[in-house]
């Protein structure tokens, strides 16, 4: 028990209340030493013969060896997907497709704890998030699109939707399983088959998902999972697919768009962001501070729609910053598998380097940095939650996406100025508005150039709600009927010039 300090004639006040470690057990995950590619319903050795090691970023410990898919492997996977499409999947009754999607959703729910632990282990995010956000949402996406699979004519009345064929999908490392669900569910619901490449640093939940597909008895070849670094992704982009769906950095997104120009392949891109979280002086302050914290420290800031710029009305600047700094001292940074951890590990050495570089730039440019006292573990990739005040719009930390737990604070005076500053960025993925005034929420929503706008909340997702960006945050939407559309072609579209 903690020691009590005596204080005169007052009842002793404790000197500390340490929460005992509350680790979620790793036992539930059966890691293999070495994985194969999931092609044609089986785990197969890569033709390239190459493997690489994937790590646990919290300990820098190796977890397993996974294949580096070479051009032949990609070609085989695409051919397999095409065969599966031609020989059964495209002609299968829609209710059959729905059946498999429902099964997958159900199995994910049943194996939820296992996948949550694996996601935290391989990616670094707190178990509380993978358990309470990633897994439930992933299952929800499969349930949602299972419902649409046999109702496409109702989703697009009079447009006679048809599947495209084979979709190549490339996903990032920040929400590995969830991004997989966002991609695979609508593709399958539309009647397509898939070759999916998870991110280099987070292949494991995607590979274990292959096991879920076998459990669901999904016809072999309908979904294929190929692992590897950027080279595998590039090969997939160039391969004989009808569609590419990419979520990742703006830079790579642009490269893909250039590569696909003139090929007739369809493309959707979900790229980066530098979202403004806008706090007006009539906002519910304590809750707004929670919203700020959730906006940028959730998932260590590895979120494309993160509220990385705080735009606070100047008249309440001081109280908000005071409350924010105080709130940061109660954030618990540590072992992702501890149920009490709020902020986990940075996903990779590479990302940590990038964060450190931009934070150094911020300091050089003259911004003021605040970090709460934090005991960071010795091994692993860690960065303390950070706030920069005195930030000018032109600083790199206000313009470039840091993709880490780093917040830049700017002020505004009027709603017009808030809109101006919020929109003054090449990105346009998301924004947050905090005010008690309903009319102002609607007014701001009309003017903000962001694909997703949250009012008095942040980072809320639902499979029925379309997600995607304006400007350099990409094009196309995921979720809702809008998320189905990119995976379909519409007969008679020529007649309407579409």
């Amino acid at each position, binding site marked *: 028990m903690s020691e009590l300090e005596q204080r005169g004639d007052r009842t002793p*006040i404790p000197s500390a209340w340490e929460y005992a470690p509350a680790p979620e057990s790793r036992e539930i995950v059966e890691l293999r030493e070495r994985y194969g590619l999931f092609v044609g319903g089986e785990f197969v050795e890569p033709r390239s013969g190459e493997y690489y090691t994937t790590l646990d970023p919290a300990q820098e410990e190796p977890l397993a060896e996974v294949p580096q898919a070479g051009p032949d492997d990609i070609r085989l996977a695409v051919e397999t997907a095409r065969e599966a499409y031609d020989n059964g999947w495209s002609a299968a009754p829609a209710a059959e497709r729905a059946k498999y999607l429902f099964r997958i959703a159900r199995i994910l729910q049943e194996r939820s704890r296992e996948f949550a632990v694996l996601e935290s282990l391989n990616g670094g995010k707190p178990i509380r998030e993978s358990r309470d956000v990633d897994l439930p949402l992933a299952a929800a996406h499969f349930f949602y699109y299972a419902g649409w699979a046999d109702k496409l004519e109702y989703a697009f009345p009079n447009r006679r939707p048809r599947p495209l064929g084979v979709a190549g999908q490339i996903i990032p490392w920040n929400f590995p399983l969830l991004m997989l669900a966002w991609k695979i569910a609508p593709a399958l619901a539309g009647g397509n088959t898939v070759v999916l490449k998870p991110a280099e640093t987070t292949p494991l939940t995607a590979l274990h998902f292959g096991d879920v597909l076998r459990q669901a008895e999904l016809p072999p070849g309908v979904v294929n999972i190929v692992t590897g670094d950027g080279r595998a992704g590039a090969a997939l982009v160039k391969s004989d697919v009808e569609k590419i769906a990419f979520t990742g950095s703006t830079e790579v997104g642009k490269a893909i768009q250039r590569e696909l120009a003139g090929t007739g392949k369809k493309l959707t891109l979900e790229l980066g962001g530098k979202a403004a979280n806008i706090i007006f*002086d009539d906002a519910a302050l304590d809750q707004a501070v929670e919203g700020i914290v959730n906006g940028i420290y959730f998932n260590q800031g590895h979120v494309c729609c993160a509220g990385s710029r705080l735009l606070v009305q100047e*008249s*309440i600047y001081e109280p908000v910053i005071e409350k924010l700094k105080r709130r940061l001292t109660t954030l618990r940074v540590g072992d992702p598998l501890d*149920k*009490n951890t709020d902020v986990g590990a940075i996903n990779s050495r590479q990302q940590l380097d990038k964060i450190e570089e931009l934070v150094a730039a911020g300091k050089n440019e003259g911004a003021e940095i605040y970090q709460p006292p934090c005991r960071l573990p010795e091994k692993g990739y860690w960065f303390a939650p950070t706030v920069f005040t005195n930030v000018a719009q032109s600083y790199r930390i206000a313009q470039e996406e840091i993709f880490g737990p780093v917040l830049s604070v700017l002020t505004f005076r009027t709603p017009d100025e808030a809109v101006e500053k919020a929109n003054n960025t090449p990105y346009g993925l998301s924004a947050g508005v905090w005010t008690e005034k309903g009319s102002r929420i609607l007014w701001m929503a009309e003017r903000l150039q962001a694909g997703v706008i949250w009012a008095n909340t942040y980072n809320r997702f639902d499979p029925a709600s379309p997600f995607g960006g304006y400007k350099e945050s990409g094009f196309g939407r995921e979720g809702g009927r809008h998320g189905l559309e990119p995976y379909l072609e519409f007969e008679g579209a020529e007649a309407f010039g579409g």
Partner: protein
Amino acid sequence: MPSSEGYTQPMAQAPALPTGFELPLEPRLPRIGAVDQVAVEARATDLSRRSIKREAKLFALDLAVRMMDLTTLEGADTPGKVAALASKAIRPDPSDSSIPSVAAVCVYPNLVQPAKERVAGTGVKVASVATAFPSGQSPTDLKVAEARRVVELGADEVDMVIDRGAFLAGRYAKVYDEIVQVKEAAHPSHLKVILEVGELGTYDNVRRASLLAIAAGADFIKTSTGKLSSSATLPVTLVMLEAIRDVFEETGRRVGMKPAGGIRNAKQSVQTLVLVHETLGLDWLTPDLFRFGASSLLNDVLMQIRKEKTGRYQSPEYFTLD
């Protein structure tokens, strides 16, 4: 001094800023402020998911006992019943002498003297309700007189109720003045002000009532009388703790908080303590600034302590009812 005949001002006045809260000269946060319901409930839920085990849990359970106001507020209370309660308050678990006494017993005015006799010489305080508890629907002068009387009878602490009728009718100045008068009458005993959150309707109102009670001199703000079905939920507790935090940050004054009613088991009490810990910090983790108003909670806490210490759950038969 306001007339003791009660108030005849017209209803639904603009809310008066209570004295003691001057209009700030520099641009500062709007003092009263608002609370977002969805967000505060989400925050309370998040905090309730903290995993508190082993030593951390024992620490919390021990605190919970030391912070308890063991309560009986029934028409059928007798000196005998109160004597038994007081004995339990002093020595909650006869088989474990390491379990501390609770903070106080809380009773109706007529039972103050028997309670006082029973706890004499121990550290346990006697708290009495007053001011036409639980409704508060009585003329001000009578309520003030009742408060004065229970202090004369020996109560160390007075738990008053605010006039919710006046509050909901917008007559905040009346609510405020009443608290000021009761505080004066209760001196030197300390004053807890019961807001009866279940009747206030919104979190915004809970925050306003909290700030108003504090401005009027409350030593503690308390959620409920325990006589309504809806009482101390985690979000409501959080709203009150945040109001207390704002007052402390701006003035340095520390006000205590007491959730009453609705906390029936040890788990809920630990969750509440997590809320206090992460909102107000260690300084509030003391019976001087935090109490649980409870009756059945104590036995569940004792059972959990026994389980943490021995590794096994004991049957409820082994814990005395009082």
